[in-house]
């Protein structure tokens, strides 16, 4: 893999971590949302990361399979909803309370979300460092001819 390919590789991780951070933000924003289009309270969403070989289709993949069999980009395989039980809070005055006076609130734990967010941000920064290193190497290589 050449140095520019490595920047693409780190870029794939930036995209993935950004999507993860966005979902955390969505979860936090909807931590108290009791009404959704599908009905019922909002459900926590999360990502599944998957390592995959760069340029996964077509001619480029065949060519790359001879040389780059080890480096792996990362991608969001899918976004899934957490189907664990909603948190129930006693609040009879709430319009969405059931007959017993309990409201179904989203299964979002703010502490978990913040931890996830910090982790995503740190991983993002780590990949930015990797890009800066690769960039410095490319600039050094350009200097050979100068």
């Amino acid at each position, binding site marked *: *893999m*050449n*140095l520019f*390919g*490595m920047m693409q*590789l*780190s870029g*794939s*991780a930036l995209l*993935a*971590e950004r999507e*993860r951070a966005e979902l955390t933000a969505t979860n936090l924003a909807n931590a108290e949302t009791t009404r959704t289009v599908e009905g019922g309270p909002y459900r926590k969403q999360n990502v599944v*990361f*998957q*390592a995959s070989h760069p340029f996964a289709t077509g001619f480029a993949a065949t060519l790359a399979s001879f*040389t*780059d*069999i*080890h*480096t*792996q*980009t*990362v991608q969001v395989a899918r976004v899934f909803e957490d189907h664990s039980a909603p948190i129930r809070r006693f609040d009879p005055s709430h319009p969405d309370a059931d007959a017993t006076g309990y409201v179904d609130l989203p299964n979002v734990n703010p502490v978990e979300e913040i931890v996830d967010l910090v*982790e*995503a941000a740190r*991983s993002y920064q*780590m*990949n930015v*460092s*990797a890009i800066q*290193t*690769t960039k*410095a*190497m490319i600039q*050094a*290589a350009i*200097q*050979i001819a100068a």
Partner: protein
Amino acid sequence: MSVMNTSQLSLIEKFLDLATVRQSLLVSNIANVDTPGYRAQDIDFHGELVRALNQDVGVPVPATVRQVPGLLSRPDGNNVSVDREGLLLAETQLKYQAAIQAMRSEFSLVRAAVNAT
């Protein structure tokens, strides 16, 4: 021995090749720091360099990539150590730049010879 084909230049070239391979693996490890089940990969830099130097003729054999031994695995099966990768990232960058400098000084000798008259 011609001035453009010195053993120093081929040594530097192999060094740069290996530094690039290592950098690609480090970048891959860092990109997959949150991928469940991913195992950190690396090459034996010194061993590969010695092997590449002893193999002068023929098609260059690609470096052997192996999983890094002795890393602590997380519950999700991932064993990428951010400290290790960050350290090697900085080290590889500096080694690469040092090799580029060495190559430039080799070329400046050639340039001096060209301009000698």
